[in-house]
């Protein structure tokens, strides 16, 4: 009986098991029952967990009593583990839509990212020195605090500074400008009340700063971070500026790779478990290929697989460009931005480079423009 099947029905059936699954054959049931289950196509406990006894008995030919027994065995088995929730794809989609993004105050970049930097994911920002990585980080540290009635996330931020570039003078500039920007947008009483909690002082009080002088201090801080995040559930952003600096001078490269992989795993786990956006900045380095040298993100090729989104900030003449070159949900795009006394903003010219192209396409033209070469070699990495 094939009726109208909507995409929601499809997603409902798509069960995502987030825990360990046991095969059906390992359940404490009689062999006859197990045979019927396997015969009907049920291979593991995950397949059974959301079914009702009536559905199960219909599909397998078991009696209702037997179906109930099966489900009890499955539930008893899978109910002990922590975090053993299975979600349907529909529930996951709804959860993703609810999760807000952190705006950057550059509407072009926010649009290209689908709203802003996503909470719950890791984003890497790479670029040459002076192009604006720290500026974007400082902007995000202020923007994450924009109250929800203004379209922000209203969260706190923990900022790990390894280079010493978190200068209060600049943070105050950015914070004051953001407060000014929001106060101009006030339309109703709710927003007016929210502005009382969004002042330069409250912004500074919601930025938790850590200074790490070497990679061991960074690893120590990351180890203790889950406790901090549990104590401060309003934290929605973790910034590490930069992750490259303490790792550049490393004698044992295999140890460095191992440490970075562990670090990446910890960051991903923290991002999802505590619903924070993780932003890390990376430096650029030159890679020699034969006679040619290319500018690539530092920390090795393996590191590139860790973050969900990769943003490349680069110069093109006197213009600053931000390119998204790895993003599962968005098409790769390039926008122009500028750094003003107020912070990270859109470029004021209406001229934007038309560079919206799918990720699989590689630019073969031998262009003298550095940004195309960079994007091409990055898509090879």
């Amino acid at each position, binding site marked *: 009986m094939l009726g109208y099947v909507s995409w929601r029905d499809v997603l409902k059936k798509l069960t995502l098991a987030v825990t360990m699954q046991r095969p059906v054959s390992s359940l404490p049931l009689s062999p006859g029952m197990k045979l019927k289950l396997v015969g009907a196509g049920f291979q593991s406990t995950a397949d059974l967990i959301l079914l009702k006894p009536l559905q199960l008995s219909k599909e397998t030919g078991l009696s209702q009593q037997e179906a109930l027994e099966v489900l009890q065995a499955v539930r008893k088995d899978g109910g002990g583990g922590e975090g053993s929730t299975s979600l349907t794809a529909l529930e996951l989609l709804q959860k993703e839509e609810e999760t807000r993004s952190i705006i950057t105050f550059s509407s072009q970049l926010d649009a290209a990212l689908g709203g802003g930097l996503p909470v719950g994911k890791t984003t890497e920002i790479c670029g*040459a*020195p*002076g*192009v604006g990585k720290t*500026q974007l980080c400082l902007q995000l540290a202020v923007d994450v605090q924009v109250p929800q009635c203004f379209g922000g996330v209203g969260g706190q931020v*923990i*900022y790990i500074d390894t*280079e*010493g*570039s*978190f*200068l*209060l*003078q*600049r*943070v*105050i*500039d950015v914070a004051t400008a953001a407060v000014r920007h929001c106060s101009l947008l006030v339309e109703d009483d709710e927003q007016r009340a929210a502005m009382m909690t969004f002042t330069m*002082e409250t912004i*500074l*009080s*919601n*930025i*938790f*700063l*850590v*200074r*790490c*002088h070497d990679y*061991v*201090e960074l*690893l*120590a*801080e990351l*180890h*203790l971070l889950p406790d*901090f995040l549990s104590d401060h559930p309003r934290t929605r952003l973790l910034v590490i500026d930069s992750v*490259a*600096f303490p790792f*550049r*001078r490393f004698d044992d490269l295999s*140890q460095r790779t*191992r440490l970075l992989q*562990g670090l990446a795993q910890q960051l991903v786990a923290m991002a999802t478990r505590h619903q924070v956006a993780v932003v890390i900045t990376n430096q*650029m*380095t*030159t890679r*020699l290929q034969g006679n040619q040298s290319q*500018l690539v993100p*530092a920390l090795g090729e393996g590191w590139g697989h860790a973050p969900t989104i990769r943003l490349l900030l*680069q*110069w*093109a*003449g*006197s213009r600053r460009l931000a390119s998204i070159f790895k993003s599962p949900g968005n098409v790769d795009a390039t926008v122009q931005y500028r*750094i003003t*006394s107020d912070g990270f903003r859109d470029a004021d010219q209406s001229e934007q480079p038309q560079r919206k192209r799918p990720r699989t396409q590689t630019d073969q033209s031998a262009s*003298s423009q*550095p940004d195309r070469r*960079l994007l091409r070699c990055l898509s090879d990495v």
Partner: protein
Amino acid sequence: MNWNQLELNPRIAATARRALKSVREVLCVSGPDLQRLTGLSRSDVQQLLAAAAAACRRHPPVPALLLHGGQCRRFESGLRLSVGCPILDRLLRGGLPVGGVTELAGESGAGKTQLALQLCLSVQYPQQHGGLDSGAVYICTEDSFPIRRLQQLIREQSSLRLDVPPSLINRLQFSDHVYIEHAADLDSLQVCLSQRVPLLLARGLVRLLVVDSVAALFRSEFLTDDWLERNKQLLTLSSTLHHLSQEFTTPVLCINQVTDVFNSLDDSLGPPSSGLSPALGLAWANQVMVRLMMQRLQGTITRGNQSSSLRRLEVVFAPHLARDGQDAAVWREGVRGVDR
């Protein structure tokens, strides 16, 4: 870091101590590997990691508001080292930041050494006059130290620093507090930076470190094939400088030379000022917090019986400064900004 300082069950600490070289190493090994190396259970290893992390971490997260009030002494409190001229200080929003490496690049004769000498004097003033109440150590790597020029600058301080009462200027013994070192190659520079300089810093005798110049050391010693070795040495040097700067909240000024830009790859480091780019490439640029450039412009400027060719001090990048520049001139009393 002492094993005894760990807040840990002594049994676990003793077991870990036998297997690992130091407390720091605990954090560099993964959980399962720690279990394997020490033979401890999973929960014991978790306790060990937590204790090691708590010991290795310098301080817990601090709200930035506390920095604003100056309540956190170990943090950057907005302290800046004045250059000695209010117009140039305006460009730099106060002066050099005290925790980080500032680079001053430019062609020869642009005025870099002049500015560095001026800073060696301005650091000696009290904090309310933009100084740090301490001396300076000046490391020369190529030419001999311009002692005559320093003496001339000292004599003319009262003409430069009109904001400071003359009685105070007369009381300061400037030449006593400028420590001059010579380092002809990288090895002797590393020795100087790991022995003599930390001693001066720890005793509070100096609060400014000048290296004039960085490029000279790397030009002569390495051929183009030794590129990797050169980068490694560069990172070691910058790491030492950075560490000294952070440890003693001392501004570090590195003077650098420039090269011509003819390779389009160099565009990626930003729009070059007048076709010149600081030497030592990307590896060095990544380690520098504030990059300034000094150029010689066409034209001269006269004032009374003195004349000077026009200079320009530019901010190439800095976390707290806009890309901007300021015209300047070099007079008998020092470098002064010029409002045209």
